[in-house]
């Protein structure tokens, strides 16, 4: 039996080929394939090409099931930059690849848990839209959490 190949297209119109039996680890792609056979190109308008390349690398892994957990951990560890991980998590969420998404989110949580609030804002690109008084009021309410 010849292996079927799918083509995925990133936000910036780059094309990536991947064998179908590997691509269907993504629940989103699996559903598409089921619905219309997905013979043509599958567009992924929210995923940029760098991130998609990572996702493809992950889907192409050849790991024994019992080593898979460790592999996923290592995979995200080696790409320990928060912006990359966030993109990866978003892509994994859109494509519904649970293991990759959990691993990426867990890694981010692990990285930011000892950050100060200011550092967290910077890492997650959050703009502080509160006055110091408002912030203090919240801190007082949940004193035990700070």
């Amino acid at each position, binding site marked *: 039996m010849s292996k079927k190949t799918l083509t995925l297209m990133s936000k910036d119109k780059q094309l990536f080929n991947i064998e179908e039996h590997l691509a269907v680890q993504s629940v989103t792609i699996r559903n598409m394939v089921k619905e219309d056979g997905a013979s043509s190109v599958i567009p992924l308008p929210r995923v940029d090409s760098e991130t998609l390349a990572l996702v493809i690398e992950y889907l192409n892994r050849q790991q024994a099931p019992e080593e898979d957990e460790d592999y996923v951990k290592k995979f995200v560890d080696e790409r320990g930059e928060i912006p990359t991980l*966030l993109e990866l*998590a*978003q892509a994994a*969420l859109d494509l519904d690849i649970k293991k990759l*998404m*959990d691993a990426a*989110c*867990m890694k*981010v*949580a*692990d990285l*930011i*848990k000892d950050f100060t*609030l200011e550092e*967290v*804002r910077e890492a*997650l*690109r*959050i*703009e*502080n*839209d*509160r006055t110091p008084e408002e*912030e203090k009021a*919240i*801190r007082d*309410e*949940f004193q*035990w*959490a*700070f």
Partner: protein
Amino acid sequence: MTDDVLLIIMSFLPFKDAVATSCLSKRWRWLWLHVVTFIFDGTESLERIAEKPSLLGSERTKFVNEVNSLIDSCNRPVVPDLQIRYDLDRSFKTDIDAWLKFAVHMSVENLELDLTDYNGLAHETYERYKFPIRLSYRTIGHLYKFPWSKFTLIEFPSLRRLVLKGVHITTATVESILENSPDLETLSLHDAGRLRDLYVDDGKLKLKHLEIVDCPKIKSIYLSSFNLVSFTYKGRLRAVRLVISNLPCLKFWDIGEGVIGLKNRVFSQFDYCLSYLDVLSLEITRPKEGLKLATIPKLPMIKKLKLAIGARKDNCLLEFTAIAKACPRLEVFTIELQWLSPIKSRRKVRHVADHPHYYLKELVFVGYFGRVSDLELVVYFIDNAAGLRKIVIDPRGSRRRGTKAVAASVTAVEEARTSAKRQLQKSLPGGRAVDLVIL
């Protein structure tokens, strides 16, 4: 980036950090409430207190404030799960009452309240928190007109699982819960010092799992004509009148008592329901007095059997094979020794008459000390269970219910491990694949 990703990240953050994110920006103000669960497990703090009891006062206040502030800020319509585990006594009645009211209003389905002290023991009976006798999702003010009235009313219709440990509860309260929580499937009561009788006889009940543990005042338990699947009773058996009839779904039975002898009541009273049990677990401190091993009835359906017994010196365990012999379909046999004073003596391994255990696949031995008695029991099963695939040896001492945890010393456990390895690897049969696991 969407909120979804942020929420997943937040769900991996330690609880306090997740709450702290409310400061990040306006958008983050309430995001954490979506991921926070109302599971307040103070185990870590209690471990600190066990090392340094003087911390109790301040840690308690901290814990109670934490629960209060989360409950106050909860803006969800429904909270399915509320679990609280902390060392709290009746001096926190106002707070705990409010938590229970919150549970009723939030339609909690799974409610767990474990208020035992930092050693895991119930508070003294006069200090123990009492479950309220009135609790309802609607205003029941009229009932308070007569403050002396003993009128009990619990209306908690969402409840599916209720676990209370170290909490007093009266018979009337339990009856009211059973009457007004039609979806209740699991009821577990530990140290309910005021519970006297329990009478359940209603075919409409969905109650599947019932656990009554260490309720010293209990006089009678009557269970009949509903679809109970598992029943656990631990505590005094001699003083309690246990009537069990017409429970066609009952498969799991865990029964035991502390110090007082069992006098074979277990078997004589329940002959008829023993015949269809799948899983039986017995806990008997003085098994030789408690179990008349010669007169054990046949237990034709039992697949899993657990025997937790008090063990002294070098007393022989081989006679307990009688109970395994009574179970022709036994697949997993667990023996757990609760140590009082183990002594290793030098003698030869004894063998008793052979008896085939055709179905036995797994033997679990908790509290293996390395005595000849321990070894000969394992050897018996190796010799007689041709289908044995796995032997699990757990040399870590087991803890008796209602006593302070006495961890076996590290060296003693290490010694037991070494002797288990030395003794058992030698005894394993050649040519048969038996997996030996030493924990």
